[in-house]
């Protein structure tokens, strides 16, 4: 009903969909960009594309599947544009917003791990950040990446392993 109303141009219905899926889409966009401002802007772009594309959405797949596909494509387009016009990627320093009870050593380690996550391939980075930073379940990550859960398990394990090895070597 909500989707049908949104397809008919009901912006209030679409706003509910935006609220419902906003966290997941911004999570995916942040895992790709590692920058909160970029992730929010990209998420807005995704929902704008969804709003304009809704009249053409046939319903062959679930709305969430279609939306996550739009988000992944937007992230890919953004990273390609950044690759051809290199710019310094501002990985958020998120340690400032971490709990004050966390000691400085833990903050530095967390920031270092974020930087190392930035060196991973996008699928691995997405999987581990969606799990450990954003708190999504394996099922949710599988739906967002449109891969089997086994692939998600493998990606998360490989990402953690790579980061752990890099930390040991540094």
């Amino acid at each position, binding site marked *: 009903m909500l989707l049908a109303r949104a397809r008919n141009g009901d912006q209030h219905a679409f706003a509910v969909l935006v*609220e419902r899926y906003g966290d997941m889409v*911004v999570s995916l966009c942040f895992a790709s960009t590692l920058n909160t401002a970029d992730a929010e802007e990209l*998420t807005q772009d995704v929902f704008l594309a969804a709003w304009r594309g809704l009249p053409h959405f046939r319903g062959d797949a679930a709305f969430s599947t279609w939306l996550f596909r739009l988000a992944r494509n937007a992230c890919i387009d953004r990273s390609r544009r950044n690759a051809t016009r290199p710019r310094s990627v501002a990985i958020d320093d998120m340690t400032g917003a971490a709990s004050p009870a966390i000691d400085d050593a833990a903050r530095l380690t*967390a920031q270092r791990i974020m930087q190392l996550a930035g060196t991973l391939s996008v699928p691995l980075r997405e999987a581990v950040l969606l*799990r450990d*930073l954003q708190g999504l379940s394996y099922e949710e990550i599988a739906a967002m990446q449109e891969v089997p859960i086994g692939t998600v398990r493998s990606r998360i394990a490989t990402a953690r392993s790579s980061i752990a090895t890099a930390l040991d070597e540094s």
Partner: protein
Amino acid sequence: MSHASDQQLSMFIDGELSATSRATVAAHLAGCPACAERHERLVDVAASLRILPAVRWTPAATAATIERCQQPPVAAGRVSRGVLAALALAVLAAAALSTTWLSALLSIARSAAATALVVLPLGPAGGAANLWILLATAILAPLAALTLARGHRR
């Protein structure tokens, strides 16, 4: 059990193993210092990320998104380079079909001027492409006119 793989340890950390597998890995970790050490390393990675604040979508972000949805799509402000080139060539082809070669040259000159008036106002972003189109027109058009004029005289 041989050493636990990183995938088994990662799934163990996340509670993704079956009860039987979980018990097997737990028993192995209790007796294998190397795997226990590796397990701790992977736990540290996961735990370090979990102390950072998750990125969250806000009601303000939803409102801003809906506001953007209410704006009409931005009209295409620039004609594609392909369309420009096709227009320029079509105009010049028509000019080159003139029966005399002087008349053809004059037509080409008029066409080039008209093309410039169409092309140049598109702004600095398309300026370089527009200049190339104009230059190509200036070189190719007289050649086309000469060829057609010679063919017409025979």
